[in-house]
């Protein structure tokens, strides 16, 4: 699953429409693209974490 999430995030980083769709409704993206909801939800959450947010989580500088 981790590999699939990473790949989805990578695609979304280069595709603003996908990124916005994920951020808006990850479950809809899961249905549209036949991807497990867990994968789209994880991708949406990771994409929502900014560098500042990562710093706050202690996993970023």
């Amino acid at each position, binding site marked *: 699953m981790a590999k699939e999430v990473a790949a989805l995030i990578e695609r979304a980083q280069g595709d603003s429409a996908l990124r916005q769709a994920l951020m808006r409704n990850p479950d809809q993206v899961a249905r549209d693209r036949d991807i497990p909801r867990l994968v789209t939800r994880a991708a949406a959450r990771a994409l929502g974490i900014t560098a500042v947010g*990562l710093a706050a989580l202690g996993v970023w500088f």
Partner: protein
Amino acid sequence: MDSGGGASGLFATEQASLRDELQAWLAWGADAGVLLAAPGKLLASTPSASTRVPAGFWALLPLSVASYCSDSPREDGPRIRRLAVACELLLCALDYYDEIEDNDASRARRQLGDGRLLNCASALYQEGLLALAELDDTSRLSTPSARLSSIASEELRRAMSGQHLDLLAEQRPLDGFDSAECIAIAQAKSGTLCRMACRLATALVGAPGEVTALLAEIGTHTGIASQIENDIHDLEQTVTAAGTAPLEKSDLARSKKTFPLVLLARSALQTPVSSADTLVYEGQEQKLAVYRNVMQQALGGAIVHRLAAGSLAERLEQLRGAAAPRKLRAILGLDA
């Protein structure tokens, strides 16, 4: 009390004899204190460096799981605490084996040297196994499959195999390494250990099969997520501390095939991180942006396992008919 000559002189011979006895029996005891008081361990005097992982995690995990699953927590309390300490001893030992295998240099290793560290870690390992055997001997449940010693043996063998895969992967090129294999290694070496702690906890209190299976799976996901987060943290330390941190001890320098490093190797940076020079990202905004993107991907890999654990925990709560306590949720990282 002898108010004249003093009692200390009176017992000098016995004290010397008892000291010899104690020293012969537990010669490694003082060194064990050094190992168990290191940062993150149960006896640590300083707070954990991580805001997420409390000191004594390996004792708190089985303690929290067993307390939640027990139908009579008060009665089971002493045995649960004994199991918690046994897990702390076992995992502390494995942690120091890992340190020598990876040639890390903690304060404990510098203080004791490799010989004493190895022997002491082995003694802690043996004490942990002995505690499990004693719990088995006094168990009212103890079907063969629920014997703590058997569970530990099965899972520890699996974890050691995973650890060896990790070491063997160091010899392989980073280029072309499949990130799915990183996760498989993380599952084998870290997921297995968290699963072991959960299985031991549920076996101790005789939890039903479905609860046991769910918690075993939750443990696996928790272990994988924690491993990825640790690997991100290691890389972050390496990148941000380039020039000041001991780079030669990092995952990067050892060519560890961690999830974030393998993703980084596939990125537009094309494995830029092979020397200290290329690690200094300050002022290189484009590279920094790529690096951030890759770390976001790696973090997504950890989050999906946290979410999977959370989803299983909901089913567990339905089965138990009770919400997971805050401490159990915290130790499993369910709200992370």
